[in-house]
C-alpha cells in the first residue's frame, strides 16, 4: 500500500492544552534562539480546535502567565474570575456548608473557563506562529525502529464496517519525527501502546481514573452571581464511592454543572450517569435548575492518581505530556495548568535535544529532571497518596488528605493503589445471594426530560457523530459478554457508559448479545478503563468524528 509520508522534526499528537503549549513554546524557542528552522506538526482527531475538549473548568493561570505573557491583551478567553467559593456536604434532602473552604478548594485568582474555547484560542496562537495543525487526523499506531519511537501512523479513511475500502479510501499517513510528543489525553490510546510495548508504567503506581459527566445549562438571570463556584460531596454517592460535583456560574446566566465519580467503585451495577441525575434532583440543585434549559452534554475520564502514577515520561524519540502522563491535581480538581506546564517543559527538552543532534533517552531524560524541578512536582508531590487513600473509604481518605495538607506530604507512607477495575466486585460477592435484576442499575434514576435525561438524549446533546459505515472503534472481545459477564458482573459496560454505546439485546435465540452503538461514543474512555475483564480497547474512529464540545 502506498502511504503518504511526512518528515518533521517534532510531531505533537493531540491539540489539547498540553500539545498546543508545547507547540507555542517550540515556536518561541525557535524565534528566541534562532538556528535552522524546525518543522513542527500537530495532529488532532477532532475536526476543529477545541471540539473534543471538555473540563469543568477552573483555570489556574500560573502557567499561562509564563507561556504567553500579556495573554489578556491577546484575547485569551478567560471567562469569569472566581468570585466566591462554596463547598457543601449533601445528604438526601439537605445540605451542610463546610464552615471553612479547605485550601485546595480555594479558587481566588482562578477563572471559570470553557476549555473548548480556551483551546480554540490557544490553537490560534499556534497557527499564528506558522505551525501546521492537522485537524481530523487521529494518530492510530506508534511507529518504531526497534525500541525507538520514530513517529505515528494516522488512521485510514474511507473504510466500511466490514473493514473493506470504500470508494474514497485513503490510507493513513506515516508521520516521521525526530521527537514525538504524546499529548493524547487521558488514557490516550497511543500512550497506551507505549505502556504495552515499552513498559513505561513498570516503575509507577497503576494509574487511577474518574469519570466526569458535564452539562451546560442556561438558567434564569440573577439566579446565581457569575463567578460563583459550588462544590459538593456526599449524596448521592455512598461512603464506598469517591467523588463529588461542581457547579460554576459562567457569564450570561450560563452554568457548568458536572459530577465526578472515581472509577474504582465496587458495585457492579452502579451507574455514574444515574448518580448525576440523582444529584440534579437534589432540592438544592433542582432549585437552581428550575425552569432552566439544557444546552450541552458530555463526559470524559480524568486521571486522578497523581504524582506516583506518572509513567516513564521519556523514551527514545518521544515524550509524554499532560493528561496522558496523569498530570492532574485531583485534590484541587485541576490539571490544565499542569498539562500546559508539562507541554512547555517537553518543548524545551525537545528543542535542546534537536539542537544537540541527539534525541535518544540520553538527552530526552532531562524532561524528567525539568518536571522534578518544576511547579508540577511542587504541587503534586505532597498530594501523591490522596486519591489512593480514598480507595480506603471517605473517612480514611479525608484524614489522609488532611494530614497531607498540614504536613505538606511529609512523614506519610506511600499508599499503593490498584487498577480501578479490580475494585469492582462480582454480583454474588457484592449482593450476596439476593436475586438482583442485573438489567437495572442499582441507582436507577427517574427521567423527566426536563431536569433529568436518558443517556441517548445526552448523546444527542453532545453533538457526537460518526459515520455508521466504518469499523466499530471499540474493539471488544465479545465472547465474555454473552457467556460469563451477565452472571458475574451484570454487564457493567451498559451502566458505566454515559452515552448508551453498549446495549445487551436479544440474540433471537433466547439469549443476549452485545450491541455496540459506536456512533453514540463521546470519546470519554471509561469503558477502556473500567471494564472488569479488560476486553474493551478504544481506538480512534475515522478522523474528525466524535463529540462536538463547543463551549464545554
Amino acid at each position: 500500500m502506498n502511504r503518504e509520508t511526512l518528515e518533521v522534526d517534532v510531531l505533537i499528537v493531540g491539540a489539547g492544552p498540553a500539545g498546543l503549549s508545547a507547540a507555542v513554546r517550540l515556536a518561541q524557542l525557535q524565534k528566541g534562539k534562532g538556528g535552522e528552522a524546525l518543522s513542527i506538526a500537530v495532529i488532532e482527531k477532532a475536526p476543529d480546535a477545541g471540539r473534543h475538549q471538555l473540563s469543568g473548568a477552573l483555570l489556574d493561570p500560573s502557567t499561562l502567565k509564563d507561556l504567553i505573557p500579556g495573554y489578556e491583551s491577546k484575547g485569551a478567553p478567560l471567562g469569569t474570575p472566581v468570585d466566591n467559593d462554596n463547598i457543601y456536604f449533601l445528604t438526601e434532602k439537605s445540605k451542610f456548608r463546610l464552615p471553612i473552604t479547605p485550601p485546595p478548594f480555594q479558587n481566588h485568582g482562578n477563572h471559570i473557563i470553557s476549555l473548548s474555547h480556551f483551546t480554540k484560542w490557544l490553537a490560534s496562537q499556534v497557527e499564528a506562529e506558522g505551525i501546521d495543525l492537522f485537524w481530523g487526523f487521529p494518530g492510530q499506531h506508534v511507529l518504531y525502529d526497534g525500541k525507538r519511537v520514530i513517529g505515528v501512523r494516522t488512521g485510514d479513511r474511507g473504510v466500511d464496517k466490514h473493514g473493506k475500502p470504500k470508494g474514497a479510501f485513503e490510507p493513513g499517513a506515516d508521520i516521521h519525527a525526530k521527537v514525538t510528543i504524546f499529548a493524547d489525553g487521558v488514557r490516550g490510546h497511543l500512550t497506551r501502546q507505549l505502556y504495552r510495548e515499552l513498559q513505561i508504567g513498570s516503575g509507577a503506581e497503576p494509574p487511577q481514573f474518574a469519570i466526569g459527566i458535564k452539562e451546560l445549562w442556561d438558567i434564569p438571570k440573577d439566579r446565581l452571581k457569575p463567578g460563583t463556584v459550588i462544590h459538593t460531596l456526599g449524596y448521592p454517592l455512598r461512603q464506598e464511592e469517591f467523588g463529588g460535583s461542581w457547579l460554576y456560574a459562567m457569564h450570561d446566566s450560563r452554568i457548568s454543572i458536572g459530577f465526578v465519580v472515581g472509577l474504582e467503585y465496587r458495585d457492579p451495577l452502579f451507574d455514574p450517569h444515574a448518580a448525576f441525575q440523582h444529584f440534579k434532583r437534589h432540592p438544592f440543585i433542582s432549585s437552581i435548575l428550575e425552569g432552566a434549559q439544557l444546552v450541552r452534554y458530555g463526559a470524559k475520564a480524568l486521571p486522578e492518581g497523581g504524582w506516583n502514577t506518572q509513567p516513564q515520561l521519556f523514551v527514545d524519540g518521544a515524550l509524554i505530556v499532560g493528561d496522558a502522563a496523569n498530570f492532574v491535581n485531583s485534590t484541587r480538581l485541576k490539571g490544565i495548568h499542569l498539562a500546559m506546564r508539562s507541554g512547555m517543559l517537553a518543548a524545551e527538552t525537545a528543542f535542546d535535544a534537536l539542537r544537540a543532534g541527539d534525541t535518544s533517552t540520553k538527552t530526552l531524560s532531562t524532561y524528567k529532571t525539568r518536571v522534578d524541578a518544576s511547579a508540577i512536582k511542587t504541587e503534586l508531590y505532597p498530594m501523591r497518596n490522596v486519591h489512593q487513600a480514598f480507595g480506603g473509604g471517605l473517612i480514611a481518605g479525608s484524614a489522609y488528605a488532611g494530614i497531607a495538607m498540614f504536613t505538606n506530604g511529609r512523614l506519610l507512607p506511600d499508599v499503593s493503589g490498584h487498577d480501578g477495575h479490580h475494585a469492582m466486585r462480582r454480583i454474588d460477592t457484592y449482593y450476596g445471594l439476593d436475586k438482583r435484576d442485573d438489567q437495572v442499575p442499582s441507582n436507577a434514576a427517574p427521567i423527566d426530560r426536563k431536569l433529568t435525561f436518558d443517556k441517548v438524549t445526552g448523546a444527542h446533546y453532545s453533538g457526537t457523530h460518526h459515520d455508521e459505515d466504518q469499523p466499530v472503534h471499540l474493539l471488544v472481545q465479545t465472547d465474555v459478554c454473552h457467556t460469563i459477564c451477565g452472571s458475574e458482573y451484570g454487564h457493567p459496560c451498559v451502566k458505566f457508559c454515559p452515552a448508551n454505546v453498549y446495549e445487551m439485546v436479544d440474540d433471537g435465540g433466547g439469549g443476549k448479545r452485545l450491541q455496540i452503538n459506536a456512533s453514540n461514543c463521546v470519546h470519554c474512555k471509561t469503558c477502556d478503563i473500567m471494564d472488569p475483564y479488560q476486553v474493551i480497547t478504544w481506538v480512534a474512529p475515522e478522523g474528525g468524528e466524535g463529540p462536538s464540545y463547543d463551549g464545554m
Partner: protein
Amino acid sequence: MILVVAEQKDGKLNRASWETIAAAQQLSGGSMPIKVGVAGQNVAAVANELAQAAVAEVIAVDHASLAHYTPDAFVQALQQVIAEAKPVLVFFPHTYQTRDFSPTLATRLDRALVTDVIAVKQSGGAATFARPMFQGKLTADVQPQGPTPHLVTIQIGAFRADAAQRGAAAAPVKTHTVTIDESKLRQKTEAPFQEAKQAVDLSQAERIVAVGRGIKSQENIAVAEQLAKAFGAELAASRPICDNGWLPMERQIGSSGQTVAPKLYVALGISGAIQHLVGMKGSRTIVAINKDAESPIFEVADYGIQGDLFELAPAIIAELQK
C-alpha cells in the same frame, strides 16, 4: 512538446479537456508547441472542435476497439501515440477515466505520473506542478524526475475552460493509425447502463408509517406493512429496527438516517428518542401509537393513541378499508 489527451464519449467532448488545454497553454507560454490527441471511434467531429484551440496539431486516433472505453485498449493506443509524437509532457484531465488507465500507462512507459495537479509553473527551467496532500491541508510543489515524457493529470475545475486560447485558424488535424491487439484486451464492455435510482426516496413520500422497537419481532413487521398499505404510505423505521436488519438502512428515519417531512407520519411503537424526533418532527400531522403514555413521542404527536399496536393497527386497517 506537450501532448494533451482530450476525453470524449460518443462524439461529445468532456469539457475538462478544454481546462487541460488551458493548463498546457499556461505552462508553455508559447515556448513549447502543444498537440492535442483524442481517441475513440468516429472522432473526426470532436477533432475538428479541438482544432479551434491555439495548438500546433490535433491527433485523431480512430479505432473500432476504442468505441467503448476499456483501459487496456486506451493504454495500447496512447502508448503508440506517445512513442510517435515524443512529447516531453503528457497532460490529461483528472477524470474517472484518466484515473482508471493513467497509472497503467505510466507503468508501461516506465515514466513519472503526477496526479491531481491544481497549478502549473516553470521554475528554474523545469515544469513544477502543485498538488494537494493530506486532504488538501498542504499543497506540495512537485517536479517529476527521470526520463521524459512525464505524465500529468489536471484536477477538474483548477483551470477555466474558457481561458483556453483559440487559434486564428483551425489547427491541422492528423489521423493517427494505431494497431490494437484484441487478444490482449482483458476487459469486454457491455452496453452502458445507468444505475437504478434508489428504490425508496422517503423524502418525497406524502405519507409515512414508521415502526419502532414496539413491534417486537421481525415477523410482526408485516403488521406495519399492512398499515402502510392501507394508508397508501411508505414504510419506514426507527434505528433499532434497521440495526436488527428487519428493514433496510435506507428506510431509517432520524439523525443517522433520513430526515422527512410528510403530510402524515404514523409512528408505530416508537418511543421517540431525540435522534428519531429530529428526523421527523417537521411532519405536518404526527400520529403516535404507543403503549407507554410517558413516551416522548407523545410530546410531538398531534394525535396520540395509548394502547397495544397489535390491537390498534388491525382496527385502523379495517376502518380504512371500509
